[in-house]
């Protein structure tokens, strides 16, 4: 929608009332959109001018309360921030407005965020510290220390990252990018004393950091651009810094790159799987490995390729490596 004029657009809007409807349906509204209007203007117009029963959450209208998050053509959107014209540029003139998670719809755009909040609470997203009730001086945080939080405190809990996360979609346990970004936010706070406690919570395979699939959907979805996956990476590093990384398949998989690179420059794929799974665990991969072997996809140890100038790599692995893992 490059032109400065108003433009009529067709919006398909998800409708569902969990108390009366068996299945959801889509209502179509033709709405004249002015340049610069945001998705929330459309939601308001639907309610005020077309159907007073249309339900959605909204509050601040300034990108701060995180209430009005919806999906437009599958893209996580903060309704009060995302311009309709930008979405038209991306998806064309037929826009589909849906709640963040259709399977949790209560009414239209309003979803049950209970699980989201429960997972959020599980990381103690608040400052854990003994507070002197009669402080004698200010509790100062230097700008350098504040910087370590690295914008994780910008999170408005809109849930856009959480409801865009494919790992959350297929794994009910996974606590997801929003709670993890908040865990990082408080772990990085110099006043906080709950770091080890939080790392304990987020360190388990199933609910924790090792179930992030590294797809970067959260980084794309965040309206505050706080890069949740970047914070998840920092949490990974913290588990090693605090010597809390567990001796499990996921941890060994991250650690196992180093010995392989030191030996060959390249990654020895087969050896990494053995190192990660252990000598018994690796057996479950044998059927696929046989199929791959038959197709010339398995390199035998004696044929393992090596990087040229391997001495440089060996020197750098010794000199640049800072991390430790005692499990192996």
């Amino acid at each position, binding site marked *: 929608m490059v032109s400065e004029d108003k433009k009529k657009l067709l919006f398909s809007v998800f409708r569902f009332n969990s108390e009366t409807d068996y299945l959801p349906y889509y209502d179509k509204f033709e709405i004249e959109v002015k340049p610069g209007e945001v998705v929330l203007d459309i939601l308001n117009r639907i309610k005020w001018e077309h159907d007073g029963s249309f339900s959605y959450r909204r509050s601040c209208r300034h990108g701060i309360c995180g209430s009005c998050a919806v999906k437009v053509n*599958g893209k996580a959107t903060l309704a009060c921030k995302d311009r309709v014209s930008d979405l038209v540029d*991306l*998806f064309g003139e037929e826009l589909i407005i849906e709640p963040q998670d259709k399977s949790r719809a209560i009414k239209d755009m309003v979803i049950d965020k209970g699980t989201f909040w429960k997972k959020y609470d599980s990381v103690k997203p608040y400052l854990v510290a003994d507070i002197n009730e009669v402080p004698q001086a200010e509790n100062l945080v230097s700008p350098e220390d504040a910087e370590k939080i690295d914008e994780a405190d910008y999170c408005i809990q809109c849930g856009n990252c959480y409801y865009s996360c*494919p*790992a959350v979609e*297929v*794994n009910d346990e996974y606590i997801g990018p929003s709670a993890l970004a908040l865990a990082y936010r408080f772990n990085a706070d110099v006043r906080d004393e709950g770091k080890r406690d939080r790392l304990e919570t987020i360190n388990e*395979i*199933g609910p924790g950091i*090792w*179930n992030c*699939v*590294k*797809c*970067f*959907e959260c*980084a*794309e979805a965040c309206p505050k651009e706080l*890069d949740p996956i970047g914070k998840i*990476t920092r949490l*990974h*590093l913290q588990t090693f810094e605090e010597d809390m990384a567990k001796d499990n*398949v*996921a941890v060994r*998989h*991250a*650690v196992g*790159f*180093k010995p*392989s*690179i030191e030996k060959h*420059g*390249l*990654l020895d*794929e087969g050896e990494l799987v053995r190192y*990660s*799974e252990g000598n018994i665990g690796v057996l479950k991969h044998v*059927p*696929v490995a046989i*199929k*791959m072997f038959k*197709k*010339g*996809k398995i*390199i035998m140890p004696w044929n393992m*390729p090596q*990087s*040229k*100038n391997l001495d*440089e*790599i060996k*020197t*750098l*692995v010794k*000199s*640049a*490596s*800072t*991390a430790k*893992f005692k499990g192996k």
Partner: protein
Amino acid sequence: MSKLKYALYTGCTARESTPELLMSTMAIAKELDIELVLLDEASCCGASHLQDFDDQLSLTLNARNICYAEKLGLTMVTICNTCQLNTAMTKERLDSDPKLKDQINGKLAEVNLEYKGTSEVKHFLYALIDDLGIDAIASKVKRPLTDMQIGAFYGCHNIRPSELHHSSNGGESSYKPNSLDRLIVALGGKNVEYESKNKCCGFHVELQAPQTANRLSGTAILDAIDNGAEAIVTPCPLCHLRMDTQQAHISQEMGREVDIPILHLPQMVGIALGIERSKLGLKHHVSDVKFV
């Protein structure tokens, strides 16, 4: 136009479990008159896992790899999305933080290398599309993929985070990518529209969360199949490994038989250019490519 010349960072997979990727890349480069200089000195990029354990080591190794492209004065091309991500992310961090760059160069000095930041890093897909051009490729098609319905599967690490990749991927939208689709059409095929084309295959949690991995790749493959795909093409060998070698597990998890050939990007181009089957390594697939 002068001959295109790049430094090729193969990554580990193309030298081990997907030899067909390296074979087909070299074969189509020859056919398209692109010169690729192999960076044999390069190490593993850490595959987005080493950085979870040892950030400085990951940065140093990736910076060293780029140094070798810089020495040649060439743009580095990658043939793996995750290599692209790790290399581009290292470059972005070092180029935007002089202190960090000095720190890493301090390490590289021990082996007489210096990271300068002079070489671009881009995936081969975008070298083909943006540097060579779709028309130039189309003009060399000898065996058009007529009537072939192909689903493009983009892989996360070429398109997200979009801010990182936009300088090297022609501004590809992470929500509505189309470069591979356009390429399929240029090669005479029919691109399949399906929602999962920009989704995650789950490769990176395959060991600790096989169910997650199988559900994610299963959902994407079935989405492509249900929309008519007879083959899927991907620019990423990790997506390829997941989707090609794990179809039995995926079928089990999804409760539906999955049997579809998965092509590497250069294999698809090679087929249309009329390159013979053996040079494209089609025998190296676990899920057979029968139609060629």
